[in-house]
């Protein structure tokens, strides 16, 4: 079942798969640089996480309101808990994905100052 879901997801992403893979690789590189403290660090982690979650939250809320119409449906087409739960789960998923996508660059930008100061200090020493 999991493998089938992955196979379906790969087909679902279709032409956008290369872009998604590039974004994931860039984010992984940024995370690796952050962990290795190259050019930036996890300083201001709280602010970075908050900003990323904020972006994710906005995406999730917009998704709740826009998703039914985006699928050609009206609110009257949502029947019972299953449909509303589905809508919230999909929207939450999109929100988490958006937050995960923006966190590494935000963290990198907010953590940059600390790293350069540290490099500066070590250079003086």
């Amino acid at each position, binding site marked *: 079942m999991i*493998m*089938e879901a*992955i196979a379906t997801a790969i087909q*679902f992403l279709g032409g956008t798969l290369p872009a998604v893979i590039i974004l994931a690789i860039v984010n992984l590189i940024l995370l690796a640089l952050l962990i290795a403290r190259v050019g930036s660090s996890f300083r201001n982690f709280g602010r970075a996480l908050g900003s990323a979650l904020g972006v994710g939250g906005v995406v999730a809320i917009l998704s709740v309101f826009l998703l039914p119409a985006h699928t*050609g449906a009206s609110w009257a*087409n949502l029947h019972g808990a299953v449909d509303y739960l589905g*809508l919230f789960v999909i929207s939450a998923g999109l929100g988490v994905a958006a937050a995960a996508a923006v966190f590494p660059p935000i963290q990198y930008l907010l953590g940059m100052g600390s790293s350069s100061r540290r490099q500066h200090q070590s250079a003086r020493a």
Partner: protein
Amino acid sequence: MTDHNPSGSEGLDLKRLVEACTRRDFLKLSGMGTGAVAAGALGAGALLHSEPARAVRTDARIVIVGAGAAGLNAANRLRRALDGAEITLVDRREDHYYQPGLTLVATGVWPQSKTEDRNERYVPRGVNWVKAMVEEYDPENNRIVTDEGETLEYDYLVVTTGLELRFDHIEGMDADLIGSHGIGCVYDNPRHAAATWSAIDDYLAEGGKGLFIRPPGAIKCAGAPLKMTMITEHRLRQRGMRGNAELHYYAPGDGLFSQPDIDDFLKRHFPEERDINVHWHHRVKGIEPEEKRVTFESDEDGEYTESYDFIHLPPSMSAPKPLRESELAAQEGSHADGGWLEVDQYTLQHKRYPNVFGVGDCCGVPIGKTSATVKNMTPVMVENLVQVIQDRDPSAEFDGYTSCPLITEIGQAILVEFNYDLEMVPTFGFISPYREHWMAWVMKEHLLLPAYNAMLHGRMS
């Protein structure tokens, strides 16, 4: 029957038969040592690596006829399950149509292009693709003949040719009429589905009498004529034209759907909630496109003519001509009329030719001419074929799984899934198969195409 064998031999050739049998026996013996691994290798069919760790070693020549949903899925699965097999796929068609999406094209939800693809994206490496149509099956001699005159010999044959739309069963009807004279038909191909939408679009603007036909006999996606009716009714409401339109649905028997709960639902839903008049025991005899008139044969009213402003007119369906006129077709019983492939409904092995298997719409099985059925049939067929190659009895059983996302309106559908016993077998327990859901619509519109494409790659079970 014309013999296109360049060697010029005709009829039953005993020497060839003995040779072929001997060859198959040898292949079975060589495959037996790998007995225990077959199931494992097949189970791995759903995994995301290109070759199973232990595929079954064989030199078998396997010919798959038809590169549609079933043929491509079978080619990919057999390619992974067998090591050394010579697999040949025969089909001239290079375009691939996502047929389950045609309903959405014919109702203006999707553009035509969304259902159009290329077979070459799914034909696995190492499989020989013969771009021709099979014209003659010669199961006595284990060979097929193409319309190019080429003879292909096989040890095992997999028939996946889908079905033929029998426009010739309706006097005055021709596929080229689709889209003109108020005639629509969702079944043929993406171009005709788009032409159906243009005919419906005109009808939505003008209103008038809309007739929706369910042809007699086994048809693929038996829900499609119902969906076309309900979505057109919804489109009329969306355009504020429902009051100007009168809708009629004509059924050949006294049911609307084979699954009894859904049948009950539709028998209430059509007249009571959608104001659609249902006429039982009606079959279309002929059409006069210029006059926009259709002639029915009815058990109660005999033969009579009706005028229309729009008619959705799918024809009856049968196995493609070369198959239905061959020895492989059912010779008696309920599947003989359509010339369907005579397979055991559980093992999908031919009842008279044990080295022949079938998958998909061409099979003479009680229900299930859907791509969802193909998804579940193919792993069963592959497992059984591999067992036969290994001289074992086929043990995997297909349960008749059939699925139809029954769109009742744009934006909602009932995800109906059932088996040979007509019991509901929902894949997602949390989505009721008895009521309309937006989630079922989301699946139909967004997830089933990627799932179908994954199936063509042999990645879905």
